[in-house]
């Protein structure tokens, strides 16, 4: 197995409280699972997201950032 096959990216997801986060919450209620290397940060609205938040996530070691809202 090559190193690429074992690479597990750490992903930070910024999710809107009113839609994407609610969907993730519902997924939890439905006992659906998603990979543990995805960490979700709830925002009151994705309009709150600033470039500084994305940079801080990457600076802290995240391999990728997704925004859902």
């Amino acid at each position, binding site marked *: 197995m090559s190193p690429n096959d074992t690479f597990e990216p750490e992903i930070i997801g910024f999710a809107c409280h009113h839609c994407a986060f609610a969907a993730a919450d519902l997924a939890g209620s439905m006992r659906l699972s998603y990979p543990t290397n995805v960490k979700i940060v709830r925002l009151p609205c994705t309009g709150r997201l*600033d*470039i*500084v938040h994305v*940079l*801080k996530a*990457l*600076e802290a070691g995240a391999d990728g950032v997704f925004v859902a809202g």
Partner: protein
Amino acid sequence: MIKAQQKPFDEIRGMLGNAKNVLILGCGTCVTICFAGGEKEVAILASLLRMAEDIDNGDRQFREHTVKRQCEWEFLDGAAEEVKNADLVVSLACGIGVQATAQRYPDKPVVPGVNTSFLGLILEQGIWSERCVACGNCVLDKTGGICPVARCSKSLLNGPCGGSVGGKCEISPEVDCAWQLIHDKLTAAGRAEELEEITPPKDWRTSQSGGPRKIVREDLRV
């Protein structure tokens, strides 16, 4: 207000030299308004510098601090502790703030993180335009509130010149001819005849051409 643009990232990084503890010092006034060197830009720059340092396996540390105004001693003194702990300061203030910081903390290297561009105003989000060159001898009363010194490419006082075509300047179709604007404004105000009066050569000694300027107000001195 003063308008500035942040220098290219590689240029800023190239000024760090051997400094291990770098302070990114922002200014909360003009450069905040034009998104060049306020608290947010300090955070972004510091984050980018930290990541670049990680990629290069460097060991520089970057701290962030922003004062309300770098051009006033009282505010600048609020950064004393942060400056003391740094080997080098990257000032994101205008040239005045950079010089004030360098003067207040003479033992500390202070480098500029922005290019101070001009005195201007915002036309729309993301677009700024020059409006004043601080010539020290304002003529806006004669020109309908439109400055020919700053906005005419030749700083003519008796315009327009032959390069004015369709209301635009010959240097670019995107640049308004200031004298066309002045003419239109005064005509609309019923003051067009005032333009027949020839303005004599301007005394440029009050401008930067006369050397560094200083204002002394004896009534305000203590």
